[in-house]
């Protein structure tokens, strides 16, 4: 399986979870989209840039605090959440979920999918 096929499969699995509105594979260092599967009207470029920056900063903060880098990030908002699972090679799997989403299942699928990418 090529790297891009693996990325597409990972995004497919995450997007199939009820309540997930879209998912992206991003490069945290560059803040750029590697692959995406998003609903129309969602700006993947902006999400990649901002989520990549967030993951980088959280990583620095936790390392600075003497604890391990986060393995899963949940940013909860009034209308939904942004979930991020950092993986190998500075790749991060990001999902946008609504309030009705099955967060537990989304978390399991994301951690499994990002583990298979490395």
């Amino acid at each position, binding site marked *: 399986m090529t790297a891009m096929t693996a990325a597409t499969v990972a995004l497919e699995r995450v997007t199939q979870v009820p309540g997930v509105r879209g998912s992206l594979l991003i490069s945290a*260092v560059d*803040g*750029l989209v590697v692959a995406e599967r998003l609903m129309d009207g969602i700006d993947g470029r902006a999400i*990649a*840039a901002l989520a*990549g*920056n967030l993951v980088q900063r959280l990583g620095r903060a936790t390392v600075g605090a003497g604890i391990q880098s986060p393995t899963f990030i949940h940013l909860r908002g009034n209308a939904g959440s942004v979930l991020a699972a950092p993986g190998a090679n500075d790749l991060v799997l990001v999902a946008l979920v609504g309030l009705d989403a099955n967060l537990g299942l989304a978390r399991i699928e994301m951690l499994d999918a990002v583990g298979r990418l490395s």
Partner: protein
Amino acid sequence: MRALEPWVLEPLQTFLAESSARLILLMTTSGQVIAQHGFSRSFEVMTAAALGSAIVASTEELARIMGSPRFGAVVHGGSRQSCMLSAFGTPRGRWIGLVVFGPETSVGIVQLFFDQMVEELVSAAPREPPARLVLAENFEHELHSSLKELFGR
């Protein structure tokens, strides 16, 4: 931060605050420097403006040869700092932005907020044409006169 036209300052300040970029230079494709932040000597601005406009001209010619539209941006990635060059249209003509940024930010963040700055510049630009037109053959003269205004010498 110094700017020849005051309406440029606000979009530029917002961009710097949001993107955490270290240096920025805004210039016309004819070499007139519109604004700069982070450069301490006029010599550095002169060199950056000349090299930046030459690189953009080269990439636009390369795109023409390839039969493709203009490239959106050129990014030179480095381990300690990176550089992005991007040309864009404004009511005042075609301008070039040269941005230098470090590992404290990312190319995605810089591009995202640069595009927002371009939108703000386009909407803030006065609709009347500039007092005088800058021609390509006046490149060196225009560069020197804009540097004098920006650095006061």
